[in-house]
């Protein structure tokens, strides 16, 4: 698509939990501006793959680079890998933003407190500047009126939009979405998807694990279908949804539709 340094590059990623092999060699590249949708059945390893990108799960083998910088890893005694350089890990993580299925907001802080937390505490931004930026991103996600509310007093859709604002506030190189609408009541899914759709339209780099096929088809520039820990098929959304080749993918799309 373009020749810029990839925002996220995954090379031959393996992950096993004990004897269970969840990822069996995945390679994936997201260049700046790419919106990569990752689809697949449950247990296909898509969330695990996403969580390896910011080392919430440590790969068993393989390499991951963010904006050209590979995580420094060292072998563990049980034959896996672990981050070797805590400072590098924190620096790289601070350039990524993750939106979780269960929001994972900090309940003891207000909406504004949640959004300024990382800029102030991790990026060292002056508080005033962080507040000003937080108000901008809250405006973007439609929560300008809610800055003093606590997460528990808001709907799931509002909480997830706040979580997206928290990510936007750090201006990440890439946004990672881990099934962002799966925990929402059906009537609240739309408001969150609208926000993500707008961000995708701005060509922000994102990797999006989702069950919302229609949405993936609309917003993704590239779709990846995972099956049993491998990428079974990938391509532009028209091809994946319009002309799927693998029988598994054909069946998967039929079962969703």
């Amino acid at each position, binding site marked *: 698509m373009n020749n810029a340094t990839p925002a996220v590059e995954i090379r031959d990623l393996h992950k096993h939990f004990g004897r269970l092999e969840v990822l069996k060699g995945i390679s994936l590249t997201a260049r700046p501006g790419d919106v990569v949708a990752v689809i697949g059945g449950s247990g296909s390893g898509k969330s695990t793959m996403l969580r390896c990108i*910011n080392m*919430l799960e440590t790969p068993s083998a393989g390499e991951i680079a963010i904006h050209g910088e590979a995580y420094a890893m060292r072998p563990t005694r049980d034959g896996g890998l672990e981050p070797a350089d*805590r400072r590098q*890990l*924190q*620096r*790289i*993580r*601070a*350039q*990524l*933003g*993750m939106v*979780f299925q*269960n929001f*994972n*907001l*900090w*309940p*003891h*802080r*207000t909406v504004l407190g949640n959004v300024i*937390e*990382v800029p102030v*505490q*991790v990026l060292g931004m002056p508080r005033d500047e962080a507040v000003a930026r937080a108000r901008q991103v809250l405006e973007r996600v439609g929560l300008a009126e809610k800055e003093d509310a*606590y*997460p*528990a*007093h808001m709907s799931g859709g509002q909480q997830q939009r706040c979580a997206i604002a928290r990510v936007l506030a*750090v201006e990440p190189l890439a946004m990672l979405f881990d099934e962002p609408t799966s925990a929402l009541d059906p009537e609240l899914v739309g408001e969150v998807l609208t926000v993500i759709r707008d961000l995708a339209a701005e060509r922000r780099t994102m990797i999006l694990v989702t069950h919302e096929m229609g949405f993936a088809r609309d917003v993704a520039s590239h779709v990846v279908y995972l099956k049993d820990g491998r990428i079974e098929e990938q391509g532009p959304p028209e091809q994946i949804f319009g002309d799927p080749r693998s029988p598994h993918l054909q069946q998967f799309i039929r079962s969703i539709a």
Partner: protein
Amino acid sequence: MIDAMDFSLLALSSPGWGGALLAGFLRSVELAAGGYLLGLVIGLLGATAKLYGGRVLRDIAEIYTLLIRAVPELVLMLLFYYVGTDLLNKLMGAMGREGIDIDGLSAGILVIGLVQGGYATEVIRGAIRAVPPGQIEAAQAFGMSPLKVLRRVTLPAMTPHALPGMANLWMIATKDTALLAVIGFSELTLVTKQAAAATREYFLFFIAAGLLYLALTLISNLGLRWLERRARRGLPAAA
């Protein structure tokens, strides 16, 4: 009997015992507050050691809480006080220094703090485990250092879970000070006993002491309720 009570015995200045009683009461509050704070610090360290420490730290914390919670408090206090000071003096002697005389207040605070720390470790450990892991994971995912995660997320998020247990421990601390009477601390209970024995007005003085303990509890309740309201800000009303 009640109408025969001579309330002038409670006067603040001699021959009344009121002043002595109040001084004993303040001593009790000092002991309780100091011991409680020390216990809180030990509890935070103990809980982090148990949850995040390596093998050795975990084992040390495990043995500490086991012993503290297995042995009656009175025995622990006698043990810490007599054996502890004895050991300390022997140690100083072995290093060629003179034995030191630990002042009563510090020794009392140390004894109560060590006992409280054992229980506080478990209260705080449970409270930390009640924090949904996703909140900690989110902080890690944004690049927070482990220490910052602890300070900015884990500790504030566990506080509402820890408060009921820690409030209990405060109440226990205020009353544990009375056990120190056995070792000869002039705290409220010992002073009361002396006053009662000297005047033979047992009923009057123990009622007065009881009322002072009650007052401390009532005032503490107000403070604890305020703390709990503050710590639960942002949490659903019923949980």
